[in-house]
């Protein structure tokens, strides 16, 4: 079976600064892959390229059968297959939790009001926030907002979920409630690519870990490499992290 995400020799620069220098990797269906590395190693840029929030200079990216590196790609089709959750939640402040979740199903997939509400209830139950359906984002804690953001993505029934440092703005307790939700998704077989600084979490749920360094994969393998790193760079990196 073809992989859900495939990068082949991907290059990307911001101005004169090269960020990705020929990145290649694949994510198979049902796999949980953690992208780790220092700030500036290119991991977030790589993740954003998957959903074409950044365009690449060279190389090929294929996601769920869509040729993302093709300038003529139908973006809205790609984005129906890909869910992404950001560090800053990005909930729409003027809409209730239900409206945040049902906006895209209703406007993009033309779901009727009743089935959209049922969908909102379903995904909110998945993230453990059923009772917050009528709340506004500002009435929620950071952890709850991030869980709603996850629910909002899930409501589009994506084939792969991307997480971009989703707990970096949260304190340890709120981080834990968000990680539990992600862990549960992993258990249900969701394909996921996560950029994270939570090494313990990566060591717990990742099927595979990719350690990026200076725009390239420096070391990759099962989650065990976090405990037994081979390269001195990963050794010093996890030495701080674990």
């Amino acid at each position, binding site marked *: 079976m073809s992989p859900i995400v495939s990068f082949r020799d991907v290059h990307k620069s911001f101005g004169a600064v090269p960020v990705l220098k020929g990145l290649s990797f694949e994510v198979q269906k049902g796999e949980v892959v953690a992208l780790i590395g220092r700030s500036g190693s290119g991991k977030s840029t790589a993740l954003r390229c998957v959903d074409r929030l950044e365009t690449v200079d060279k190389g090929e990216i294929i996601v769920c059968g869509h040729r993302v590196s093709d300038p003529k790609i139908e973006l*809205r089709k790609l984005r129906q297959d890909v869910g*992404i959750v950001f560090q800053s939640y990005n909930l729409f*402040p003027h809409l209730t939790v239900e409206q945040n979740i049902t906006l*895209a199903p209703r406007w993009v997939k033309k779901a009727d009001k009743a089935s959209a509400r049922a969908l909102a209830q379903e995904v909110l139950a998945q993230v453990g926030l059923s009772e917050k359906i009528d709340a506004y984002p500002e009435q929620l804690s950071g952890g709850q907002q991030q869980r709603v953001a996850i629910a909002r993505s899930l409501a589009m029934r994506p084939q792969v979920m991307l997480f971009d440092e989703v707990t970096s703005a949260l304190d340890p307790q709120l981080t834990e409630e968000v990680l539990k939700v992600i862990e549960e998704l992993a258990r249900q077989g969701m394909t996921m690519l996560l950029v994270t600084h939570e090494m313990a979490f990566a060591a717990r749920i990742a099927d595979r870990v990719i350690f990026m360094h200076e725009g390239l994969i420096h070391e990759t393998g099962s989650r065990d490499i976090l405990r037994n790193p081979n390269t001195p760079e990963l050794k010093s990196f996890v030495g701080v992290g674990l």
Partner: protein
Amino acid sequence: MDYSFDFSFLWDYWPMLADGLWLTIQLSLMATVAGFLLGIACAVASTSRSRILRGLVGLYVELIRNTPLLVQLFVVYFGLASLGLKFSATTSAVIGLTINIGAYSSEIIRAGIESIHKGQIEAGDCLALSRWQVVAAIVLPTAIEKVYPALASQYVLLMLGTSIASQISAEEMTAAASRIQSDTFRPFEVFLVIAALYLLLSFGMRGLFWAVGQFAFVRRRKLGTTL
């Protein structure tokens, strides 16, 4: 200083004042609604990727904001007439006021749009919403809620500015007052009464905007917080 006030004659002219008042209200409401819509269109166009569109909107906004309203009304009323486009004074006033307030609305709404965090738009894009859906569901509602107080003030100013339409013979309240004082030679009383009526209109408009805001911004009504 032995001026003795006498307002009694105003009773005879009340119908004229009432007609003027009614036209002032009509001009204000029509120009507010049309100018608001024009302002939204221009504000969205000013964030467009098309350089031509952005240039055209910039030209329009700067032309209007840097010339007097009176001159703009003259251009519409007399200028277009010499091109064969003849409108009544009232229609010309509505057109001129709309063009004028549209430019100010556009600038205010554009400021609101620019204050929106980029992540909001990115989140909308990533949910597979189209560009127009993002604008309609996310960008405009939040932008307008943020700048609503500034817009409301601008529309109250517009209402006061409708008095200038008297100069192109639109029979609004100030024009009616001018007529009455030239009949009665009692300008002090007439214009004091007119001033009081404008004051009441201003308060009325602010109340109206408050009510519209309560209706339009559900979250603010429920939580009482600003975005």
